[in-house]
């Protein structure tokens, strides 16, 4: 056998798979609103493309108690019948914790040496013999988990442990591909705002802060761009000729007519000859009726519920 040709063919396959995943990631990341969506996407991609039975992504974070803890942010299975308790338990958490604390770049263990024999036997039935751990970090700050409702969140730089459960150890090329893809994903996440810039002080944030929508207090309200939200049910399931479709307030109606999706609030005030107070009231009315949505100049949707509250 010509191992050189076999080796070069394998490298080509590895590179094309790598490229395939990265290309798909470029497309999918545009729809993502939170870093956890990216983590889940990556986990599923590794399961699908590398044939890995289980992939987990753990991170280190500082909770409201200001103590460092390990938290699972994504998990993907190849076989849905795998009992969750077998693969999500304190032993796995300890494993993730050790990777994070030691920052082990490439750890490979036999499951039978890490798990109690009963648990190892269960995993063995599903063909899981080995666990590979990879540590990745970035100076970018990791947003809290999406469901975190705590009042204060201490942001920390990203420190992640990827756990791969498999029947055979990964080849070196496969390991490199996983790490490369993850690094690309982190870079993209920073570019897309799913990870917060390291230049922001890693201090406390009040309230439930997530990647999007942006905080309206960061933007001058009159720089925001309103866009119309057409009622999807009109004429489909609701009578279009009922009086409820009317915009009763004259100024709101004037403002709504002027909205073309490109002019900001300041421009609309100029065109409609509304002063600041009138424009704010009109916008609030339109927002309350769900007739418009506000966007920042970069095209990101803005949480308008807090927009004009202090005016």
């Amino acid at each position, binding site marked *: 056998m010509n191992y050189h040709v076999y080796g070069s063919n394998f490298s080509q396959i590895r590179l094309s798979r790598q490229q395939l995943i990265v290309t798909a990631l470029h497309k999918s990341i545009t729809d993502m609103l939170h870093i956890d969506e990216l983590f889940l996407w990556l986990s599923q991609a590794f399961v699908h493309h590398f044939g890995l039975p289980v992939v987990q992504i753990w991170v280190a974070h500082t909770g409201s108690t200001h103590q460092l803890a390990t938290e699972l942010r994504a998990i993907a299975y190849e076989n849905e019948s795998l009992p969750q308790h077998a693969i999500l338990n304190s032993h796995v958490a300890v494993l993730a914790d050790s990777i994070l604390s030691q920052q082990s770049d490439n750890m490979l263990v036999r499951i039978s040496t890490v798990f109690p024999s009963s648990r190892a036997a269960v995993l063995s039935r599903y063909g899981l013999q080995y666990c590979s751990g990879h540590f990745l970090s970035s100076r970018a700050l990791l947003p809290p988990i999406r469901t975190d409702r705590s009042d204060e969140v201490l942001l920390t730089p990203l420190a992640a442990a990827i756990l791969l459960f498999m029947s055979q150890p990964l080849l070196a090329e496969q390991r490199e591909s996983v790490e490369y893809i993850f690094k690309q994903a982190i870079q993209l996440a920073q570019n897309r705002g799913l990870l917060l810039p390291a230049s922001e002080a890693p201090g406390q944030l009040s309230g439930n802060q997530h990647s999007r929508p942006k905080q309206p207090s960061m933007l001058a309200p009159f720089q925001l761009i309103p866009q*119309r939200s*057409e009622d999807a049910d009109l004429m489909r399931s609701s009578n*279009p000729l009922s*009086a409820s479709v009317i*915009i009763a307030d004259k100024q709101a109606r004037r403002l709504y007519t002027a909205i073309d*999706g490109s002019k900001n609030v300041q421009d609309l005030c100029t065109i409609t000859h509304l002063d600041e107070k009138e424009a704010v009231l009109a916008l609030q009315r339109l927002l309350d009726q769900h007739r418009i949505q506000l966007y920042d100049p970069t095209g990101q949707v803005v949480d308008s519920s807090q927009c004009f509250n202090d005016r």
Partner: protein
Amino acid sequence: MPQNLIANILSLTLFLVSLFISLRAFYLYSQANSHRLFILGLSMGILSFTAIASFIGDNVTSLTLNIKWFEYISQTVCFLFILLSLVRSSNTYLRRLMDWHTLVSALLLTLLLLSPILPADFPDPGLTKTLLGGSRSLICFIIFNYYLNVFMSKNMRFSFLMGTVFLLLSLGYWLNIFKYTLHNMLLADQVGDLTRIFGLIILLMTIFLG
């Protein structure tokens, strides 16, 4: 009973119902600035024109108005734009659709103005009328299916009634096309007209009850 009594009743019913909906839609458009309302208003307005033009063409024999070109093509186009306005809700899409509808409607009205000089009949009339008449039936049937899907998912009375309206219109137009190719189809034609009248009455009821 005059032979074209039912056809006249149909024309007048279509004229009155379409005109009412058109005027109401345009009024609400001035108050709500919704693109979908504009498209509805314009479509129903053109439909009312086709109805009154058909009535005049059939009954005022002293005038030579070759209305059929305008009638068939306009009705097909109007139903098509109503269908297109339902399928998507994006503001950009509806604004562009509105612009296209305005342009096409201007062309259709030009067709109406040219009716005195247009040929009296279509080339290969049996086939052409069947295709144009059949296209109205087909588009109405597609709209019926659309409302049926909405009703199945949302269970709204409005969707049910509108689905019924377009099913009846589709059936009526389908029954009308047999006369173009087969003989002695007057009964089918009249049943088709009555079906459409019934559909229009339900449309009017839906506007008030839906």
